């Protein structure tokens, strides 16, 4: 791999990667069982440089911001490289947000360029607020011929022949603005520097190396910090290949393992559970004698891999399992949400190590990672090299807030010094998560101190971001909370949101109000919905500017109401 300690920017490192491995495959894009595109590093450069040249010709310059809103595909990475080559700042946005949320973040990030796909652009054009879009250059991929793109350019035709100048950046310069939340009005744009990414990449690849020939299957959205790092920067700075699948259908994901002989893949707990369920069903369907034999082989594998994974041994003992995963799989990574130890153990006993991790965008993605020395499914692993982890204000059982310090921690929140000061204190990033470091340095998580939930799909949901759907609800006031924030619970699974309602004087909770509440709730995507409501009989404490004092309100509710009786399920 490239020695990243010698580089000042992602652009410089990626540029050298394109020169160093011109004949190696870097990208494969498949849609279901059809391969759409395959590029070597040399071919990648031939596509990316004309794009960078056209961007520069359009006036895009060092420090300018370019947003990408795309599903996982080759043009995502090609566009990102062109932005870095031109000295730009990348703003990866979630394609699953609504068009109005995307417009809000585009405005907040002050993106000068937007790269997007035709269906997303169509939705943006129809959204309220589209006229306020300030991006000067919009590039749209895969637009049907003869379609009016409202002034946007076709990505495929946006190129110039002049060799683009490479624009150098400093390590401390802004590389990306990554939104970890904030579609509800106060966006949290994590400003990540080039150093943040270079340091994180060195730490991760020291534990899980990539090399030419390695194939990483990218199915998490590339705008997500995890896939950006392990599905782009990591493989590219090591000469490895990224395989993009344009569908998440389990049958095609399974097929991709075999077809492309995948080495690594990252998934969220929901997908891992789905894989586990499918495998368990297949095992259960085996004839009794075969099942006994199989269980015996799994037990032998369990014994032989107690101290560390032994891939060659596992592949010989359980060849059908390993061939079903392509025969080259070295590890799966799982992150974004809590994974049950039993699920991790299930895969480990089959000889498929699942490295579970804990991290957050603000910390430069990964804080701790399981290194299998030895396998500890009851923890989220040990801190990455260069990552200091402290437990603040520990209780008698040593559980306290997890704080981290490293060169990978973000610089600040964009245009929000107040929130930055609350989050990074004396150089330590306060995660809001509760954990304990055991005697071997493994981190165990126990719950959250912060007012948010994480779903099994790895989605972080902040109450403030969904409250606008309840605006106008016929009550005096309302406030959404994570139930575990109101009533702290040491649990990382089954987290729920609840709305606290303060009714008008003399108002009773009617069927009409219940219907209104339920119907508004249905407007939210399923994973964002509230699970219940709480009736509260006092006015909410507010600041001088009339903002709800959430922490104070939570404390009052906690003091007077019992969770099991107060929460009414919707």
């Amino acid at each position: 791999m490239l020695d990243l300690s010698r580089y000042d920017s992602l652009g410089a490192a990626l540029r050298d990667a394109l020169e160093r491995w011109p004949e190696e495959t870097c990208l494969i894009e498949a849609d279901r069982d059809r391969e759409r595109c395959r590029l070597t590093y040399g071919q990648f450069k031939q596509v990316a440089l004309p794009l960078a040249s056209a961007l520069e010709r359009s006036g895009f310059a060092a420090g300018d911001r370019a947003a990408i809103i795309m599903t996982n595909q080759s043009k995502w990475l090609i566009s990102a490289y062109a932005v870095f080559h031109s000295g730009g700042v990348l703003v990866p946005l979630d394609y699953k947000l609504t068009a109005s949320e995307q417009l809000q973040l585009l405005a907040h990030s002050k993106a000068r360029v937007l790269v997007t796909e035709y269906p997303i652009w169509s939705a943006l054009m129809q959204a309220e607020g589209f006229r306020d879009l300030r991006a000067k250059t919009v590039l749209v991929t895969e637009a049907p011929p003869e379609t009016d793109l409202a002034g946007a350019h076709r990505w495929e035709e946006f190129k110039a022949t002049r060799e683009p100048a490479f624009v150098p950046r400093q390590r401390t310069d802004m590389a990306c603005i990554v939104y970890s939340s904030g579609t509800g009005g106060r966006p949290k744009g994590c400003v990540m520097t080039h150093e943040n990414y270079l340091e994180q990449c060195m730490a991760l690849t020291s534990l899980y190396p990539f090399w030419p020939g390695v194939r990483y299957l990218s199915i998490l959205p590339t705008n997500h910090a995890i896939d950006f790092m392990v599905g782009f920067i990591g493989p590219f700075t090591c000469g490895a290949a990224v395989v993009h699948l344009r569908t998440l259908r389990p049958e095609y994901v399974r097929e991709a393992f075999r077809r492309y002989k995948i080495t690594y893949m990252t998934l969220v707990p929901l997908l891992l559970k789905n894989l586990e369920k499918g495998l368990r069903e297949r095992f259960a369907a085996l004839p009794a004698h075969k099942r006994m034999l199989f269980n015996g082989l799994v037990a032998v594998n369990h014994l032989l891999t107690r101290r560390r994974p032994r891939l060659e041994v596992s592949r010989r003992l359980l060849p059908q399992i390993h061939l079903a995963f392509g025969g080259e799989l070295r590890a799966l990574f799982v992150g974004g949400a809590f994974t049950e130890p039993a699920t991790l153990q299930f895969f480990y006993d089959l000889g498929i190590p699942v490295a579970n991790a804990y991290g957050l965008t603000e910390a430069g993605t990964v804080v701790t990672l399981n290194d299998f020395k030895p396998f500890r499914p009851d923890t989220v692993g040990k801190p990455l090299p260069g990552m200091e982890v402290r437990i603040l204000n520990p209780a008698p059982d040593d559980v306290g807030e997890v704080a981290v310090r490293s060169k990978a921690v973000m610089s600040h929140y964009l245009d929000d010094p107040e929130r930055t000061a609350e989050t990074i204190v004396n150089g330590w990033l306060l995660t809001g998560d509760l954990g304990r470091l055991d005697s071997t340095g493994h981190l165990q998580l126990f719950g959250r101190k912060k007012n948010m939930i994480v779903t099994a799909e790895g989605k972080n949901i902040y109450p403030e971001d969904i409250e606008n759907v309840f605006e106008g609800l016929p009550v005096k006031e309302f406030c959404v909370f994570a139930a575990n924030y109101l009533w702290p619970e040491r649990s990382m699974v089954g987290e729920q949101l609840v709305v606290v309602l303060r009714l008008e004087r003399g108002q009773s909770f009617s069927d009409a109000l219940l219907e209104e509440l339920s119907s508004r709730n249905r407007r939210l995507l399923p994973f964002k919905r509230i699970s219940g409501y709480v009736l509260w009989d006092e006015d909410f404490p507010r600041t001088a500017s009339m903002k709800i004092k959430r922490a104070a309100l939570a404390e009052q509710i906690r003091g007077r109401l019992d969770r099991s009786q107060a929460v009414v399920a919707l």
Partner: protein
Amino acid sequence: MRTLEQTTEEIVGLAATHFQVPREKLSPDDDFFKKLGIDSLQALDLLTRLENHFGVELPDYEIQGVTDFRALARRIQARL
């Protein structure tokens, strides 16, 4: 050529069979995530079955934000 109503009916019927829910308990405007108690992956699984039934191909993003049978039927109808 099916009408939108027919397409919707067939979708509801297929979903009922696939997830083993009595047909009469489902209606076109139901939120299928909630009514069937399914997650996003199971919804993709349903989509695959619908594709096979109707002989169309729907990219994953086509069901972004779609939560009820009728809206799903409109997406499929547009490709019939």
